[in-house]
């Protein structure tokens, strides 16, 4: 267990160093493009900062009010329809890039959240209320209704299938 933790810990630093290496290579090949990328990076950081702060706040609150028993009851194996509802609505209401939600979801998973609900949460991030006017403008209302229906439906199908695949793999 400790070995896995150290491996994971090293992995994310290696990943960061590799990306920094890519910037260095680009700087040698095309300095202005590397500079442009770096400025884009700073811009993204600025945009993402409030979302990251929001996620950290949620983590703090969940640490205060939620415990493994409560999470298992609402999002665990026996959560049923309530679990699907929470993860689908949570996915729709969540803002920012999906990777910003990794820490919170990973913590909930450690405390008993079903894999199916994590999948449903991620898939429903495709349905965004704030984007609806834009979608209607480009594609029309009937398109938006039909697409949203299928996305929610497939989030459940994918969630169920994920657990079946993981069980198969575990048996192997």
């Amino acid at each position, binding site marked *: 267990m400790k070995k896995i933790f150290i491996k994971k810990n090293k992995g994310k630093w290696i*990943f*960061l160093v590799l*990306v920094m290496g890519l910037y260095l290579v680009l700087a040698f090949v095309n300095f202005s493009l590397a500079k442009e990328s770096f400025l884009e990076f700073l811009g993204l950081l600025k945009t993402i900062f409030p979302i990251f702060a929001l996620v950290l706040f949620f*983590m703090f609150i969940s640490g205060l009010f939620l415990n493994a028993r409560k999470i298992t009851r609402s999002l665990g194996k026996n959560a049923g329809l309530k679990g699907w509802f929470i993860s689908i609505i949570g996915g729709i209401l969540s803002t920012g890039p999906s990777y910003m939600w*990794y*820490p919170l979801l*990973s913590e909930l998973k450690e405390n008993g959240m079903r894999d199916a609900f994590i999948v449903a949460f991620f898939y429903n991030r495709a349905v965004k209320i704030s984007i609806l006017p834009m979608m209607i403008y480009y594609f029309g209302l009937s398109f938006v209704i039909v697409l949203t229906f299928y996305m929610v439906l497939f989030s459940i199908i994918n969630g169920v299938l994920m657990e079946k695949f993981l069980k198969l793999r575990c048996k192997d």
Partner: protein
Amino acid sequence: MTLLKVKESFIKMLKSFKQIFPMILGIIALIALFMTVVPKSFYNIIFTGNKIIDPLLGATLGSIAIGQPITSYIIGGEFLNHGVSLIAVIAFILAWVSVGTIQLPAESMVFGKKFAIIRNLMSFVSALIIAVLTTLTLSFL
């Protein structure tokens, strides 16, 4: 709620932040690089009008593309205006928002390799199936 509980929760949050911070920094840097190196006009050149290849191309491009979901709808809308098929556009948008090739290393580290690979593969296939189903349903309405 005691002060000790608040302190415990705060320390737990800081630990999680320390765990995830280098990874998120790496992903943001990679996304910035991708957004600068690959211009948006690149997508317009790719589609040929083939009914089978275009949706596959749409889903593949969406899988490797990065950005806010709103960007995918804007680009998708423009594709549609330029004559790209609806199936290809839907596959592109759905893969954009649900498949994360660039985030795959981070997702694997957090949720496990099997989980990340299966989730992304299923999202890719679903993008194609939903594209077909949506187009078919709309043709009946």
